[in-house]
């Protein structure tokens, strides 16, 4: 990049790095609905079906969601992603993936979420969605191992990035507070969702803790909360507090860095072609019209050697 390009005032919102077209949004919405069902089926499953399918249901939902996530990803990239958006996605996802070992456990990683949320905030909801998908995918490939939990984690992280991009406009300190609050809520929600995913695998425990098909939602919800409390909710709350603190501290700086980078990357750069000053474009590579070039002589390179050789 050219050195010393003057820095204009950084706008509070930069152009979106990855714009989702109408049809893609429809696919995204449908997929998200299916995702909600894939997460929340214990609450709505019919008791007759539930008893017979208790074991198969988690596996079948996992496979279904895997297919849906694959189809969704293909839809988002259909028509191609700009190289800049792709490179930025890859690099930020790598950053997030490298921070995953700093979190702990299966639910709720704080630093990784920070990258996803801030990326979604700075670069748009579409970008945030794909960033969530890729960060989870990348970190699974690098560290966590690929498994049936992956589509669920990917979707959860993607929702997190999407939500961050959809937050209302704000700037300065208020923005940092807004994003920090969202981050805390989102990490608790993510932990909750992952507990929800794990919940059906714990059938066989006391019926007070595992779900009972057909019961009213509130009753099942109480059981889920009890299960969460006993397993990880405490940790989740601590992690949420940590996310809040981290965002408050570093969020402003990171957002500025991301926006500066997106400005330098010139997403959606408009190439403006000015006047041609009357010169016709060159028709063929061989033609060399008399140019106004200030080279003193149109000598061939061979002659230059002759010049130097003579004393």
């Amino acid at each position: 990049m050219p050195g010393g390009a003057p820095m204009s005032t950084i706008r509070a919102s930069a152009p979106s790095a990855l714009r989702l077209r109408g049809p893609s949004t429809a696919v995204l919405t449908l997929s998200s609905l299916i995702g909600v069902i894939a997460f929340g089926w214990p609450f709505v499953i019919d008791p007759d079906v539930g008893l017979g399918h208790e074991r198969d249901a988690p596996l079948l939902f996992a496979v279904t969601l895997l297919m849906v996530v694959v189809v969704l990803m293909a839809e988002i990239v259909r028509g191609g992603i700009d190289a800049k958006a792709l490179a930025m996605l890859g690099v930020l996802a790598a950053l997030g993936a490298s921070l995953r070992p700093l979190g702990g456990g299966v639910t709720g990683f704080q630093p990784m979420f920070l990258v996803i949320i801030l990326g979604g905030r700075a670069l748009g909801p579409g970008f945030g969605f794909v960033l969530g998908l890729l960060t989870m995918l990348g970190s699974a490939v690098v560290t966590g191992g690929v498994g049936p939990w992956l589509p669920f984690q990917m979707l959860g992280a993607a929702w997190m990035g999407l939500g961050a991009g959809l937050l209302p406009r704000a700037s300065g300190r208020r923005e940092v507070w807004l994003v920090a609050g969202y981050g805390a809520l989102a990490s608790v929600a993510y932990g909750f969702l992952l507990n929800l995913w794990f919940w059906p695998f714990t059938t066989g425990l006391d019926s007070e803790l595992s779900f009972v098909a057909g019961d009213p939602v509130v009753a099942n919800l109480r059981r889920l909360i009890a299960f969460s409390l006993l397993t990880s909710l405490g940790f989740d709350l601590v992690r949420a507090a940590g996310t809040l603190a981290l965002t408050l501290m570093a969020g402003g700086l990171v957002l500025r860095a991301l926006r500066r980078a997106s400005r330098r990357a010139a997403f959606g750069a408009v190439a403006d072609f000015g006047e041609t000053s009357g010169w016709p474009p060159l028709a063929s590579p061989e033609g060399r019209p008399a140019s106004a070039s200030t080279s003193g002589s149109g000598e061939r390179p061979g002659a230059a050697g002759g010049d130097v050789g003579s004393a």
Partner: protein
Amino acid sequence: MISFRAVSVTYPDAAAPALVAVDLEIVEGELALVVGSTGSGKSTLLRCVNGLVPHFTGGRLDGHVTVAGRDTRTHRPRDLADVVGYVDQDPSAGFVTDVVEDELAYAMESLGLAPSLMRRRVEETLDLLGLADIRYRPLRTLSAGQKQRVAIGSVLTAHPSVLVMDEPTSALDPQAAEEVLAAVQRLVHDLGMTVLMSEHRLERAVQYADRVLVVDGSTVIDHQPAQAMAHSPVIPPVVALGRLAGWDPLPLTVRDARRDAEPLRRRLAGGTALPPAGNGGSPAVRPAVVSAREVTVRHPEVVALRRASLSVAPGEVVALMGRNGAGKTTMLRVLAGVDRPESGRVRMGTRDPAGLRGGERVRAVGLVPQNPRDLLWTESVAQECRDADRDAETSAGTSAGLLARLQPELDVDLHPGDLSEGQRLAVALAVVLAGDPAVLLLDEPTRGLDYATKRRLVSLLRDRAASGTAVVLATHDVELAAEVATRVVILAEGEVVADGPARESVMASPVFAPQVAKVLAPLPFLTVEEVSACLAGLP
């Protein structure tokens, strides 16, 4: 082959155009060299050729740029990928895959070539660039020279007609730079490619060039090499010597200069004012301010330093030289206390530099790493200076003052990431020198610097040495060592191979001799200043 017609480029949000009314014509099969001071628009010119400006960067392009008959107005960079190969300054940032062979094949995959054809071309390119024995290696394990060759290979497999390179040898030591330039020569002479490259180290490349494009401000002037050198603000030492001695036409290589140099040698030999002995006073007399004794440093797979010893006295300027991997950087890190040696002792006075913390450390030793960017992490240059003053516990404004001396026209509100290489080095130096350390360590300071900034650096180092700082430079740049060093230490395979006064060491070795020394051998002149001082002293 490449044609610019009345091209002006203005970046978005920029106050002034980067290029104005450029008219150029580069014929097929030529090697054109683009020179100019940092930030002068060389990169912009190169990026216009393959369409990155304005399609990728945004902005406004007036006029036409045409390559192999294709106008960049209607062709985006991806459409030009089969005629133009573009290699950026930092090859490792441009790698898309993780293995050498895959990297070579990537461009062809995007072009949709048949697998058998791809295989053939990959094999050819491996042979052409000497990469066959590293074909399966992961890219991050390669040396800088190998990475540069892989980057060139990765665009060559598409068989472009034009090759555009942005400072291909700036990160390389002389040996690797020779290999890369030789490969480029092969491409131009055997394959008839058209090559357009920008370069700071003119002394390496100007002899290969068929034409030189001097970028001055926002204008581009197109010359034959000899003419360009007559007027250019950036010149290699051989050309400076030629200008001084009034040779016409100006020599571009040491060989050309030696033919002209006989009369000059006779004149100088007759004079009595040989170069001052101050450039190489015996250092053994004064007590060392920092010393490393028999240190051994072992990295996971390689022994970086093997019972090496070095001691530096105040006021000395020591140049550490040697090929890549010889241990220069490790020696600097050991002296700075960043790496602890496995055995041996490092002492600064009575203390071990590794144990120093905070303000003490900054006042004792300052190290400017290879990538000055690593030292800067705040939002603006002014903030960096303030932080440096606070860390060094000195009065406010110290480092800002130093910076103003080094780089006078720098806008201190700029973000460090937006600076050019030279500017970043200046900021890093100002930050490090805020504490007025007794020992100043510099790792490859002149990489990517143009001659003007280099001159300012040299004068700064001379001042520091005169005021009693011990300076140690790890460098490949023999010209820099010739100008500023009082002592030269040569490392190889982790051991100190030679350690002596600069003048003798540098003159004794053909690899490390600067151009002036090679031209005027056997007379002991190292720099053009010395020659001009001697000539001035003659009757």
